[in-house]
């Protein structure tokens, strides 16, 4: 298992149970993460690479696998394309070069590469450590290349495992909450797909892709978007470069927020629509990381005038002149089943009796799909084109360290809290320590700081005051904090909104900062090599 840019021990604790079972059964784990996370302590080896050097590491691993003759030749010939170009592209990533770019010993990179290539089954698992970068898509493709090189994909026990951070972020995409897709990942721009949906919905649908959240903020900046309807999202706390985002939200002509709490975003709203808690007060489905669609059920009634999201939207539609009646969640699901082949076989009854089902599950006799991409191993590739290698190059974080901002800031989750704390703030956790800036003891000493001392942390975008937590597990030059307590520490004042044009995700994982002692503010000395 290559656990790469994921602290699943804290962010996906029950998934991590399964990894630990694997370890107990003899599996080997390499943890690739700039931080020595709690997950990495379970690993046989922790590789604390330079933040943002993931592509360099992956390409070095690839080059070493190729040089050692450990590639899966048969698989490459049958199931992939572009191997020769890829091989040439990674050739410069020698162990020496990889060592220089990643800060890891070449021998360790070689060891991990050989273990991955020679394992009977192997998985690469990642989370936001891979995707919250300005070159997020490159990072993902670099890892996909490794799977194609070794054939560790499309087989039981092998594969690429992106861990979804929220309980229904997978389901949201599956249901078409993407600017370019209808439910079931059917393309908005495909006339056949569009016609199918138009026939059922009884309206004409736009023929062009919409825009994603990051582009929406840019459109607000240009004045092209003047009204926003925000459902169950708290962008006024969660966006990178938060000051900027708040300014844009405040400048809208009309902001409607539908939420269960009076969030910071709701406070900016013209209209607040009180919603109910999806998983405890509503009927419906959610879809997990493993594409498992499962039922959520109402256990308690929503308080006061709070209503189910689907009722609120239905009521809005009615006021706009479209009466959808009073469909149940199962009625809506049946419509979805008729439109999305991936979900065609998933009735409520089956979801109930089979502990959920993993898509694709096209018909009632289909057992669901524990893994994808099995077609790569079929003789005719299931009628598809061979899977292409992608040529990607090392870039490093957008924001370089400087004399003014000599420390690297990265962010992530802690075990007992979740995102901006809207939900997790509601219980009294004995292990909660609040947002603090984790810093290496040597850096703390250099800055004349003691554990718990409050400091001023600044990036090119803003400043916050927060306490430090001296942590030997964080390497020199790197700092880390969670983002769970925006009311205490507005950490996204600091984070970088440089984003990947293909994924729309901002580089939360790498900002440049400086740390100043509050009592006697002084310019810190630059870190060696920074």
């Amino acid at each position, binding site marked *: 298992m290559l656990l790469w840019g994921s602290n699943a021990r804290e*962010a*996906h*604790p*029950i*998934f991590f*149970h399964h990894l*630990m079972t694997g370890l107990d059964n003899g599996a080997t784990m390499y943890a690739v993460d700039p931080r020595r996370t709690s997950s990495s302590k*379970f690993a046989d080896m922790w590789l604390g690479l330079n933040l943002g050097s993931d592509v360099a590491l992956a390409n070095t691993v690839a080059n070493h696998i190729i040089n050692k003759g450990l590639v899966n030749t048969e698989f490459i010939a*049958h199931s992939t394309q572009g191997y020769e170009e890829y091989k040439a592209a990674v050739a410069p990533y020698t162990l020496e070069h990889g060592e220089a770019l990643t800060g890891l010993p070449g021998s360790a990179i070689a060891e991990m590469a050989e273990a991955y290539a020679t394992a009977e089954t192997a998985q690469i698992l990642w989370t936001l450590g891979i995707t919250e970068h300005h070159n997020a898509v490159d990072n993902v493709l670099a890892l996909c290349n490794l799977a194609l090189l070794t*054939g560790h994909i*499309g*087989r*039981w*026990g092998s594969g690429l495992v992106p*861990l*979804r*951070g*929220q*309980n229904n*972020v*997978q389901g949201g995409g599956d249901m078409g909450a993407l600017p370019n897709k209808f439910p079931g990942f059917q393309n908005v721009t495909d006339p056949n797909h569009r016609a199918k949906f138009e026939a059922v919905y009884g309206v004409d649908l736009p023929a062009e892709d919409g825009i994603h959240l990051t582009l929406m903020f840019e459109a607000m900046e240009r004045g092209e978007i003047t009204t926003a309807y925000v459902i169950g999202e708290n962008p006024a706390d969660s966006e990178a470069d938060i000051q900027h985002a708040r300014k844009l939200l405040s400048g809208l002509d009309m902001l409607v927020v539908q939420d269960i*709490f*009076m969030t910071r975003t709701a406070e900016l709203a013209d209209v*607040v629509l*009180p919603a109910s808690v999806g998983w*405890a*007060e509503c009927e419906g489905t*959610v879809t*997990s*990381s*493993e594409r*498992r669609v*499962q*039922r*959520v*059920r*109402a*256990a*308690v*009634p929503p*308080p*006061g*005038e*709070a209503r189910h999201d689907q009722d609120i939207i239905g009521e809005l539609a009615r006021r706009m002149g479209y009466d959808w009646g009073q469909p149940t969640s199962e009625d809506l699901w049946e419509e979805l089943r008729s439109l999305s082949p991936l979900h065609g076989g998933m009735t409520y009854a089956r979801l109930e009796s089979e*502990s959920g089902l993993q898509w694709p599950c096209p018909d009632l006799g289909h057992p669901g799909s524990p893994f994808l991409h*099995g077609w790569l191993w079929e003789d005719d590739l299931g009628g598809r084109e061979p899977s292409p290698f992608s040529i990607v190059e090392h870039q490093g974080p957008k924001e370089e360290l400087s004399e003014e901002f000599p420390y690297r800031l990265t962010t992530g989750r802690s*075990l*007992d*809290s*979740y995102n901006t704390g*809207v*939900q*997790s*703030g*509601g*219980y*009294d*956790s*004995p*292990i909660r320590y609040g947002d603090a800036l984790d810093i290496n003891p040597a850096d703390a000493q250099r800055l004349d700081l003691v554990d718990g001392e409050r400091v001023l942390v600044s990036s090119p975008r803003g400043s916050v005051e927060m306490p430090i937590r001296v942590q030997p597990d964080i390497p020199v030059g790197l700092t880390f904090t969670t983002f769970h307590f925006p009311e205490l520490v507005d950490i996204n004042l600091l984070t970088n909104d440089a984003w990947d044009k293909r994924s729309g995700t901002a580089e939360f994982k790498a900002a440049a900062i400086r740390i100043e002692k509050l009592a006697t503010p002084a310019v810190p000395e630059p870190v060696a090599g920074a």
Partner: protein
Amino acid sequence: MTSRQQPVAASETAVTISVNGSDVSVPEGGTILDACSAAGIETPTICYAENLTPVNACRVCVVEVENSRTLVPSCSRAAEPGMVVQTDSERVRHSRKMVLEFLGSGVDLSQADQLAPWMEKYGSDPGRYGESPETMNEEVRIEDNLYIRDYDKCVLCYKCVEACGDDAQHTFAISMSGRGFGARIATEFDVALPDSACVYCGNCVAVCPTNALQFKTEFDLREMGNWREEEQEVTQTVCSYCGVGCNLELHTQDERIVKVTSPADHSVTSGHLCIKGRFGWQYVHAGADEVDVQIGR
């Protein structure tokens, strides 16, 4: 191109044994307890749980196996072809009676609801051990707002240790400590839970058979005399936090969630949760009054 597309299949071979004179088949590797269940024979258990490795410590599930000098624990002994098992012999009834009686004489079983009918069935009489038999004699420990430890009710079944350890959580905040009757579940040097490695997943609480570990919500309601389990409803749903898809069982009373468990037979959780799934539900109710005022709910 060939590749393995499925996990290694579980054994299809069946093993047939005799239970109380009738033949019963279980899949190879199945236990005597599995065979008893298949035969519709109810067996008392305390330390056994389907999502934990059997420790066969409580000995209440013992059965008589032909040619075995002593009784054997049905929860952990694999069924072997031709085994002849008696589940209701004089010896079995005696040992089950005595195990329950021993526990009743030293441990507070007042909330071990599933044991009472068995004690009645086997005629256990915990009162026959003199005027002052030694008991656990422990105070209730309340160290935080999530769960309490009442070791007066502890039968030392190891379930919490297993759930905290390598059967699930791998945190190892607690261990069996001491020896003999002085054995207790403890953190290192018995430090308070918040000072220990405990990460408050609550998996220990979920597997406790005697309510020695209790969610604070349950404990408080019981203290108020307002815990009404018979009225509670259980609704299965999915956790609202990360994307793993853990199934939750919401136990509700008076339209409020009072505790959260997970089905032991669910492939994602095997009944185990993390602190967020186990305790992070409180926002559904907590602060509701305040929000009601603010946004007119």
